[in-house]
């Protein structure tokens, strides 16, 4: 059962990327609306800083606008986009000479308290791996197999960690409310 419900199918995303390669700004806008949440959530789950994640969000779409011509469809457009995001996150972490932030830094003071609770729970109670797995599947909407590819983990690890992480979140959110 797919959790995330994207309006566009992978083949539509493929077409948007092809249109971006033909320098179409409208296609970039459409792709942004379809995928920006997944990109931002993944960047935030890796970097644990809303400011850094916002930078990576912007850089990811700029990179897409520059490299769309290199994209060849393999049925996994979102995994391609998230791999770009991952590399940009790694670059940033390398520049900052840290592997992971010790504490999270969630800006967005205007956010709804309920949404904030959920995102903070993700950042606080899940391990780095669990959080990235949950975000990649539940928010970015890629398949578990693609999550395994993006993260370089065995699929069985991804599946069991995903299930465990969601149970952890469910228990925590049940107590906090």
């Amino acid at each position, binding site marked *: 059962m797919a959790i995330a419900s994207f309006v566009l199918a992978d083949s539509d995303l493929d077409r948007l990327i092809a249109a971006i390669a033909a320098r179409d700004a409208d296609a970039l806008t459409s792709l942004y609306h379809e995928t920006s949440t997944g990109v931002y959530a993944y960047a935030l789950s890796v970097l644990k800083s809303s400011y850094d994640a916002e930078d990576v969000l912007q850089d990811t779409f700029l990179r897409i606008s520059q490299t769309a011509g290199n994209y060849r469809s*393999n049925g996994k457009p979102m995994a391609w986009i998230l791999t770009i995001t991952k590399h940009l996150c790694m670059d940033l972490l390398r520049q900052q000479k840290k592997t992971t932030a010790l504490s999270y830094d969630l800006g967005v003071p205007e956010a709804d308290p309920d949404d904030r609770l959920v995102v903070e729970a993700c950042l606080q109670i899940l391990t780095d791996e669990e959080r990235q797995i949950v975000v990649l599947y539940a928010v970015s909407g890629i398949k578990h197999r693609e999550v395994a590819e993006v993260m370089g983990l065995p699929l*069985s690890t991804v599946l069991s960690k995903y299930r465990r992480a969601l149970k952890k979140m469910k228990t925590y959110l049940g107590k906090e409310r």
Partner: protein
Amino acid sequence: MTVNRTAREIRRAFENITPNVLDRVLSQSSLKKGAVTPMQEKKPFIPYAIQKIASAAAVVVLLIAIGAVALMILNGRTNPQLSDNPTEPPTEAPTDSEEIPEGPLPQPYFTYSPYAVNAYSKEEMGEDYSLYCALVDAVLNYETRVSGFSSEEQFLNLWITMRDELPPAWKLCAGYLDFDEPYIYADGTVELKFVLDKNAHMALLDAYAQRIQRDISTLLETDTEVERIAKVYQCVVNSMKYSGTQQRLYDAIMNNRGVSSDFAEYMMILLNQIGVECYFAQGYGEGIEVHTWVIAKMDGKYYHFDPTWEQDFRNWYWFAIDDQLRRDSVLPEWRNLFIMGGDYEDVNSEGVIVVGKISHFTYQRIPLPICTEKYKEDSRCNGIAPWLW
């Protein structure tokens, strides 16, 4: 609240906190509003290369030709991609793969086995192989309960292996995450949840078994290992058509349409049936694109086999090539297509090939020997199954 509801809640929360940086992106990119949008799906790999080559100036073609001659002289071998006119598509249409030579059919030497697995998987499974066979039996006999598992991880590893080795199983069973109730109970029992009634279930398994049996039926006892691998390779290239949409492996094989990983996995399934050591190889090109092919051991050495790219060439170019030939490919954007890794260091470390099993992604680095032989020029290849192309 169910697990899936929790996931939806997480998604909604992230949606609501995502900042909008679209204006900044658009102002910094050089894209134009209302540019012509190509409506047709881009055909991968070769047409793109041909377009690129066709658009190059005549002088470039001349330089390539000179380079080809120089290469022939230096290396003492011909490169068909360089010596042929690269702008022309192959002139000979492929022959129908169903066509069988006249005369009585030879008795099949290999018989389809649902228990056949990749040698690498089998080594990884170790003693768990007997449990894997119990899972296969359950699927084959429409039995929902299998016992003897010591952990969820153990079951998942075998379950995922089954996806690659017996593709109909994943078509016939509901997924591990589709239910809130456990797939595995505390007493080590697994409960499979079949999606079809027994008759439809059996019919689907039977159709798959017949398909694989048909594919390996052309392999003879008298065939050499090279000939057997070549026949498997031909079978995959002739059966499959490239489709940009990813689907279940079972559907890809049965509908003869798939992406490069389907080509590679299908070839591996057939090689596993005949006991050839093979690996799933995946790598990124310069555009961080993923492509998949097969590495198999032939006559004691490891070679690359790329049935996806062969589809467009059909001249054995991608059959049993070594590291160097792959790097010297005529498609410059794919020259470094060797690397699979989770980080930039891996992507940039040229010459390292990381292979393994698709489902586990516990990649194993194997050093490929630099081979001077090229099997497509080998007379043993030219002589086999000429009716196929």
